[in-house]
């Protein structure tokens, strides 16, 4: 299958699914049928792609649904209402896609279930692809998805939902670090673009801008050996300027509407980094101001920790350490931040000791390796 075909196939998934639901299929059965149709499309399209891709998918998915329902009906005798294939119905409303996002991110779902269901029902990924992306067996992922569908089975499809829950799910998908066959960051961007087309909401725009601005740095984030390159040391020539321009444009339009939210504020910080030709030219004063906004919006301890880093850059390492001292020392990355600020304050011995402690506590492998390298760098320098 060519990439174009697969992209087309996946972009059609939500509208095919909503056609089935509008014809009277319940969500769980319709979703299974669409998944079966996608798998069949992946099998037969490479040999002969249909002229009307969506029509093909609707026909095949509906047939799969009828087959499954008939098999069911043999046991349960509840076949009548779906025996006849109904008219295709009116053209799908944009709103249907939005309903699908709401359903898949329903607050009754755990984050992991919402992520899996969104990737399958809205994203059109196969269970196998999702399982590979999250490094679990396909059988486990299949069960996670069917449990998620059971959980939302009581939810009416046309019930209004909360955009904030959808944004959290998309943020989680984007932030997932694993790289497998499926590019989850690119998929999150695609789904957020699609959402932005379905609903006019400044925070949706804010999240899309945030994703684009971070995605723009992707090539510069890792060295050829796979190690992490910190923002200050990244080769800014490798940042994707087209993505940055797009992200900044979307952000500015969102900010102009004067309905600030956490994703717009995070995107603003990313945009200020993107705007600096060199790390030294970063406008840290403005970044601190945005962190103050973010603290007001979320009051998250992680935000306060990142703010302490920014204060250390804007007002010097002593000020950063003072801001850090107000925070709970058990916060993730607290020790790593302290180590960095102590080094900048001219105390490499304390920095080396704290980097070693931070490496021991690190919860991700690349972060641990990065911190261990800092210890090695400082210890080597001191021994010379």
């Amino acid at each position, binding site marked *: 299958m060519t990439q174009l075909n697969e992209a087309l196939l996946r972009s059609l998934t939500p509208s095919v699914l909503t056609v089935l639901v509008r014809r009277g299929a319940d969500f769980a059965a319709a979703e299974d049928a669409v998944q079966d149709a996608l798998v069949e499309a992946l099998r037969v399209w490479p040999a002969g792609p249909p002229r009307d891709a969506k029509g093909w998918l609707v026909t095949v998915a509906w047939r799969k649904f009828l087959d499954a329902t008939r098999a069911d009906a043999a046991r349960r005798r509840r076949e009548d209402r779906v025996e006849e294939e109904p008219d295709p119905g009116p053209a799908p409303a944009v709103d249907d896609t939005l309903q699908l996002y709401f359903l898949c991110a329903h607050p009754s779902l*755990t*984050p*992991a*279930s919402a992520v*899996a269901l969104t990737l399958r029902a809205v994203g059109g990924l196969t269970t196998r692809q999702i399982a590979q992306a*999250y*490094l*679990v*067996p396909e*059988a*486990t*992922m299949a*069960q*996670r*998805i069917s*449990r998620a569908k059971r959980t939302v089975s009581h939810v009416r499809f046309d019930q209004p939902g909360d955009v904030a829950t959808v944004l959290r799910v998309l*943020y989680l998908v*984007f*932030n*997932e*670090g*694993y*790289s497998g066959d499926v590019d989850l*960051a690119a998929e999150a961007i695609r789904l957020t673009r699609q959402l932005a087309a379905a609903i006019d909401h400044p925070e949706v725009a804010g999240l899309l801008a*945030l994703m684009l601005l*971070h*995605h723009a740095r*992707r090539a510069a984030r890792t060295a050829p050996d796979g190690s*992490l390159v910190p*923002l200050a040391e990244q080769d800014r020539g490798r940042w994707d300027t087209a993505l940055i321009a797009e992200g900044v444009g979307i952000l500015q339009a969102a900010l102009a509407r004067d309905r600030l939210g956490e994703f717009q504020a*995070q995107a603003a*910080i*990313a945009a200020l*980094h993107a705007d600096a030709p060199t790390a030294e030219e970063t406008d840290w004063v403005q970044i601190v101001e945005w962190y103050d906004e973010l603290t007001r919006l979320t009051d998250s301890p992680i935000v306060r920790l*990142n703010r302490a*880093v920014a204060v250390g850059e804007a007002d010097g390492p002593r000020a950063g350490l003072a801001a850090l001292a107000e925070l709970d020392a058990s916060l993730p990355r607290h020790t790593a931040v302290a180590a960095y600020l102590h080094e900048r304050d001219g105390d490499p011995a304390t920095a080396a000791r704290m980097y070693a402690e931070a490496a021991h506590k*690190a*919860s*991700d*492998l*690349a*972060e*641990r390796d990065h911190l261990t390298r800092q210890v090695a760098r400082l210890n080597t320098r001191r021994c010379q």
Partner: protein
Amino acid sequence: MAKYLLLKHYRGAPAPANDVPMDQWTPEEISAHMQYMNDFAARLEKTGEFVDGQALAPEGAWVRYDGEGRPPVTDGPFAETKDLIAGWMIIDVDSYERAVELAGELSAAPGAGGKPIHEWLELRPFLTAPPTITE
């Protein structure tokens, strides 16, 4: 979601409450123990939390590089090795609390007399991949 390793030890863990070695159980007690483990894994698959489970033979060897062009050196097993892993289960769960809850259930597997072993299991978080958004 976060992945955790549940480690079972042949030795090296603190003594369990029901501390009768498996070779002194009745065949029915061994079967009941195995059934409990299999049912536990099957239940976790249904909840979408199972990743992997494997058992290890107690006998193994130590292997090391012995220089260019030479075959690796094998040695052991060494009787003084304190820690001996018996097997593992890997779970993918929403929280640390859930991981502890599941480890507790697995530790209740029946042993001698059909009573829970109260076996100490080692619970270790996986190191993850870095998040995309860091600042």
